[in-house]
């Protein structure tokens, strides 16, 4: 293997930093501060097996490294973003047949995110919203997710014979569900017992899907036209 270029090394060191940020979410940091602020040039050097000098050669200061690390986490760590929700839902569909309680899907999505350390680490990026690049990157990611997920929701409603209330958009419903999802992940983070599973009419349900159902029912109504059309067909 040839000697790595300066750009490659730069990327390597940023990738190590991103790992350290994600790891700090699972550790119990004795020195509270911010995940990102914990990532010291010295630690990155130690993990990379190089001298601190090798990093200071690329970044004149700790702050310069942090700046690039933040941009790196945002740009490259899309896995923790929510744009891929439809794919997760899609793979969930292949695990469950169509007659499965639709709320089981909702609980699957919740279970996916609640255990994702990177998703949590991403919430700590909210501390940097004063930086316009960061705010707009998070905003863009969320808008992409909302737009893509809107189609999934519209299809799910159609299948269930419901439609959005007049004056409510599919986006509104997705935003409400996404807010609940994020909040429930935080609750689970404090204490898994705060997001328990319940027996509901003989079906095991997570508290997340109970809330999601309440939101869906409140923002939609039975689709009279479709019920009538289905009646004609039978």
């Amino acid at each position: 293997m040839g000697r790595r270029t300066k750009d490659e090394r730069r990327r390597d060191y940023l990738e190590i930093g991103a790992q350290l940020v994600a790891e700090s979410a699972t550790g119990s940091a004795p020195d509270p501060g911010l995940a990102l602020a914990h990532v010291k040039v010295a630690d990155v050097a130690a993990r990379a097996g190089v001298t601190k000098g090798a990093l200071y050669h690329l970044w004149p200061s700790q702050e310069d490294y942090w700046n690039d690390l933040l941009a790196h986490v945002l740009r490259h760590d899309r896995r923790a973003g929510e744009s891929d929700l439809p794919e997760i839902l899609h793979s969930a569909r292949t695990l469950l047949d169509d007659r499965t309680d639709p709320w089981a899907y909702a609980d699957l999505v919740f279970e996916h995110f609640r255990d994702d350390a990177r998703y949590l680490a991403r919430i700590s990026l909210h501390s940097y919203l004063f930086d316009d690049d960061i705010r707009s990157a998070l905003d863009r990611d969320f808008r992409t997710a909302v737009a893509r997920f809107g189609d999934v929701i519209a299809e799910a409603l159609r299948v269930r014979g419901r439609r959005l209330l007049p004056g409510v958009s599919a986006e509104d419903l997705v935003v409400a569900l996404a807010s609940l999802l994020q909040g429930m992940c935080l609750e689970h983070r404090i204490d898994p017992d705060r997001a328990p599973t319940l027996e509901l009419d003989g079906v095991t349900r997570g508290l997340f899907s109970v809330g999601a159902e309440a939101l869906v029912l409140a923002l939609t109504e039975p689709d009279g036209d479709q019920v009538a059309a289905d009646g004609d067909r039978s």
Partner: protein
Amino acid sequence: MARPTAEERRQDYLAIGAEMVLEFDRSRGATVPVDALANIRLADVARRAGVTKGALYHIWESQEEFRHDLMIHLLELEAQVGIRETATLIEEVPRDEDPGRSMRRLNDFAFRRLRDDPAFLARFSFYTYAANPEVRELLLHGRDRFREYYEMYLRRAGRRLREPFTLDQVIVLAEAYLYGSILRHRTSPELVDRTVRVDEEDWGLVQLGMRAILDGLSEPVEDDDQPRS
């Protein structure tokens, strides 16, 4: 004036630290002060307090120990956010007001009050450290800040919880939805701050969702005798 006790001095220094953390945004154009926590130095606190560094190192052996106490102090501050105002609002609800309307007013207040409060927003950076039992305990502080008000709504709306739900679960869901909405609002305000027209009334999306959760987990008390509305 008597000489302040060691504990009083400790509290003074923490208050100064908190002030510096919460001011951090203003000095750098930020809205949330978390970086600040990692960057507040005992030396700066000492300077602002007009004492020597030694006076602070007498209380905290290290920078890390101070930061630890400062974080706890911030979370305790946060737990108080909105509590007094909420209590006042609950007391002032007119007896004959439609319970749905009272709830909307209170939800609206909670959302607007919390979403711009730096002490509240600082909370979100602490979830990263929830594996630390002490931090976890502190994040549970303030969880009951709206309990009384959910109870009041159910009572006045003539509703009771459906089996098998508990009020704690309602509180978790409502809190999750409120906090989640606040997080979303910070990155994408236009998506969250939406007015939707339902039942010929304008609702904020957040207020509507809060009602949905309360009503979804509850049912009218006298559903046999009374015609359903």
